[in-house]
């Protein structure tokens, strides 16, 4: 155990985490040269494209250190986005140390701060690393000051590297061995292995990435999942080098995979503990939480015949994504679909994109909403994840909305803009610390405001320089109302939204105007109204299209004219038929595009 080092890399997107991991693998010989694909660990296309890591992975590296001894370095890759902060925390819990990789030109970013705090909470030894040191814009001294001021970490011994060129990486490997403590655990105690991540493999069933804390995992042994009490026989254990390499045993302190014929990832939840069935541990490892989605949206197939296909695709995605929730939803406007729960906006986008790309589905997504806590007049408390289902005002005693704490780092020159934005979004300032060129801000904000367009707005308010991270704080009473959209006098359930009553009037007007822009002129006039209850707030009209006819068609044109018709029909097919009105997909997202200008 003395020769094992378990560590993660904490870094902001594009600060060089994956490149550094690649360099480690190259130096430690985990792969032949021809097997080196750029960014080996991000295995999903989507991950590589977006430059983010969605699933946790690990790689066991063999390194002969300056002392002549051979060490096993287990790098546990963490998801790189705020939506997956729970997974990050479990990855960190499996380590004794972490590399804090900061771009020597860009400096500290909010996400780095949040993850760094999580690492300190887990008592990890943090090794600051300044990456991209060879860039002309690198300013190591400023960045060291930022690390010390904002994170409160001694950065005087920060290691300077260029992951791209390999400069300083060998020295960094030495520092990992020297500064990160060896794992402590009791090989003779009952088995306790932390589940870092689980995924579904077509051949092995559920495979879990685990960190063995105490005891050992043997092939053929019988293990128990502590939260469920279910027992399984271990079929296989092993490590990733990064190739899957089977072993007989994973001992205390080691990181690797285990497959035990578990059929469903919910059978091996992230953060849970595997123990031995014969000699169970007294208590599970700390920190297990059930995952709760925070953002909800309706997903509907554009073509109702694809409903079954959507159901199957969601079921398949859920095999590998414990955070994805869905249940059937019926909308008058959109027909049969699913109300899905996501960790956050990015998670939602990823799922949507995978459904469309990998399963070739045409989807219509309703605007994202948060989950409200609703206390009825009779005092019962329920949760509403769909604006259309908010009971009428007289049936409600109180509605409570989720509040998050947003940690924002922003260069001083954009501070005013960012504060204005947070205030506009009903934020309450909690903290403001000046650190070098940057300001560290904390605001409490309603999550409902964040899911709308906060990311985009923050980006434009700071020219892309602000970084942002958040966590759920509590539910708070909020004077909200349901805003309905009526098309030709009929309420369209999928267009309802819940808004703060102070801005309801304005939102209604903006939304009606936006809908007018988005709904194309068609055969008949379309009346759009925004209403709260029976009170009409705004009214817009999409004038009827006067004509839709091809001026010329002679003998040679038939094939071309027919293609034109087919294209028009395909365009219509991508719209949703509501009575005699065709509503384009973009209209269901209109709420995301209003309220930008004051």
């Amino acid at each position, binding site marked *: 155990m003395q020769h094992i080092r378990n560590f993660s890399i904490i870094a902001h997107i594009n600060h060089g985490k994956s490149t550094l991991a690649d360099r480690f693998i190259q130096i430690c010989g985990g792969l032949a040269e021809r097997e080196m694909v750029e960014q080996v660990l991000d295995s999903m296309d989507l991950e590589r494209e977006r430059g983010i890591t969605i699933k946790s992975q690990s790689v066991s590296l063999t390194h002969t250190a300056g002392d002549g001894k051979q060490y096993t370095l287990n790098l546990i890759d963490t998801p790189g986005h705020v939506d997956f902060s729970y997974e990050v925390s479990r990855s960190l819990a499996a380590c004794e140390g972490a590399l804090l990789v900061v771009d020597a030109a860009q400096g500290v970013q909010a996400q780095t701060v949040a993850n760094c705090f999580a690492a300190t909470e887990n008592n990890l030894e943090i090794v600051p690393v300044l990456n991209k040191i060879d860039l002309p814009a690198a300013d190591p001294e400023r960045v060291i000051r930022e690390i010390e001021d904002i994170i409160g970490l001694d950065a005087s011994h920060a290691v300077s590297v260029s992951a791209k060129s390999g400069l300083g990486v060998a020295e960094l490997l030495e520092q990992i061995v020297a500064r990160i403590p060896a794992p402590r655990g009791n090989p003779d105690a009952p088995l306790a292995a932390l589940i870092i991540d689980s995924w579904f493999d077509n051949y092995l069933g559920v495979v879990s990435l685990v960190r063995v804390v105490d005891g050992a995992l043997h092939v053929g042994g019988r293990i128990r999942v502590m939260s469920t009490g279910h027992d399984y026989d271990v079929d296989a254990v092993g490590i990733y080098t990064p190739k899957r390499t089977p072993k007989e045993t994973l001992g205390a302190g080691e990181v690797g995979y285990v497959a035990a014929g578990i059929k469903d990832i919910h059978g091996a939840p992230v953060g849970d503990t595997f123990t031995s069935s014969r000699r169970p541990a007294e208590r599970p490892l700390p920190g297990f939480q059930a995952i709760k989605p925070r953002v909800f949206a309706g997903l509907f197939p554009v073509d109702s015949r694809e409903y079954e296909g959507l159901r199957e695709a969601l079921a398949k995605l859920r095999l590998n994504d414990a955070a994805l929730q869905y249940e059937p939803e019926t909308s008058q406007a959109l027909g049969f679909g699913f109300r899905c729960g996501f960790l956050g906006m990015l998670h939602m986008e990823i799922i949507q994109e995978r459904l469309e790309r990998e399963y*070739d589905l045409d989807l219509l997504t309703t605007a994202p909403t948060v989950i409200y806590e609703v206390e009825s007049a009779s005092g019962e408390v329920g949760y509403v994840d769909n604006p259309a289902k908010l009971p009428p005002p007289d049936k409600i005693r109180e509605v409570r909305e989720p509040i998050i704490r947003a940690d924002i780092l922003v260069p001083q020159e954009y501070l005013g803009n960012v504060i204005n934005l947070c205030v506009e979004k009903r934020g309450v300032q909690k903290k403001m610390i000046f650190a070098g060129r940057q300001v560290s801000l904390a605001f409490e904000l309603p999550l409902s405001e964040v899911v709308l367009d906060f990311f985009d707005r923050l980006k434009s308010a700071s020219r892309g320089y602000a970084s942002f991270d958040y966590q759920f704080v509590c539910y708070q009473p909020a004077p909200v109302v349901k805003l309905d959209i009526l098309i030709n006098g009929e309420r369209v359930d999928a267009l309802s939204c819940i808004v703060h009553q102070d801005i309801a009037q304005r939102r209604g007007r903006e939304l009606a105007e936006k809908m007018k822009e988005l709904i194309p002129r068609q055969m008949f006039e379309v009346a759009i109204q925004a209403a709260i209850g029976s009170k009409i707030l705004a009214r817009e009209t999409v004038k009827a299209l006067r004509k839709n*006819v*091809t*001026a010329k068609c002679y*003998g040679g044109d038939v094939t071309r004219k027919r293609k034109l018709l087919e294209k*028009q*029909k395909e365009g219509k097919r991508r719209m949703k038929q509501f009575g005699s009105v065709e509503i384009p997909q973009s209209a269901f997202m209109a709420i995301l595009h209003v309220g930008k200008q004051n």
Partner: protein
Amino acid sequence: MSTRLQPPPVSLYVHLPWCVRKCPYCDFNSHGIGPGAVPDRAYLDALIRDVEQELPQLHGRRFQTIFFGGGTPSLFPAGAIGRLLEVLARHDAVAPGAEITLEANPGTAEARRFAGYHGLGINRLSLGMQSLDDASLRSLGRIHDSAEAIRAAAIAHAAGFTRINMDLMHGLPAQTPAAAMDDLRRLVALRPTHVSWYELTIEPNTAFYSAPPRLPDEDTIWDMRVLGQQQLRDAGFRQYEVSAWAAPGHECRHNINYWEFGDYLGIGAGAHGKLTDVERGTITRHARHRLPERYMKLAGTPAVVVRRQELAASDRVIEFMLNACRLTEGFALALFTARTGLDAEALAPGLRQAADRGLLAQGAGRVQPTEFGRCHLNDLLQWFLPEDRRVRATVQR
């Protein structure tokens, strides 16, 4: 499905693919060429080889109409056109009283040939006026001006043509409804017996498509349409198709044959044809090589046809409707059966949907688009497109 097919009348379309200059709105198969450089002899040789190869496919039917289209057919001297007509006469391929149309550019050079054309037995002239306003003509890239056009009209009458079509566009760049009405008034004064009055549309693969001009907005164009319809009616024309207006008895029989889903043989570079084989129960579309040089080389051999498509039942439904619903009077269900070989039942679901939306009316064995349906013909036709085009679209993606 073949048994109910009846041999439809057959027309001949002759494509002459050259123009002095290609117009920026034109998406037909035409190629710019200097005046006098048209290889008329070689091209006519090719047309003659082509038509002689095809005549046996007609199973004894004679051409009810012939249409020389382009391009600019009037770039060809009368003598050249005459060679083809002689060959047809020798084969007894032209029905007595056939309508024979030639498209002409209303320029001075072309007008000199009108009398010659008339002498060949060409009995209908179609003049591509497009506008009678010089600024508009320039914006359309036309090579003639309004004075030439007016002269050409007079020459056409003087040459003995009693059936004269004039093409006129509206919705031109920067055009006002008043200007469009002036244009129409001046055109009517030139005494056409037929007017093709159509809206300028920007088609893909044209110069206008890559550099779109500023066109009047939809509501302005609508105003032009309403005013123009009234003006044409007042001048004694009747609208019998989306863009076609005729004095009584002067409807274009050639085009009506397209719209009634009749047969036509298309010869010339890039020409399209549609032929019914009653015995085999097939309806086949074919297209010829687009490039004039290749066409001239291959004419007379089977390789001149580059695409051949047999129409399945679902194709016949949409293609019949695409044509027949353009006609103001609509069509008889019996015609549908005779031309497609399909039972009228094949139309029933679409007819019901379209009728429910007020797009068409039915009665006494006829189907007629309503005024509303004629304005929204593309919406009407949606109901007759085969389902599951999506499958094809997905495969193509």
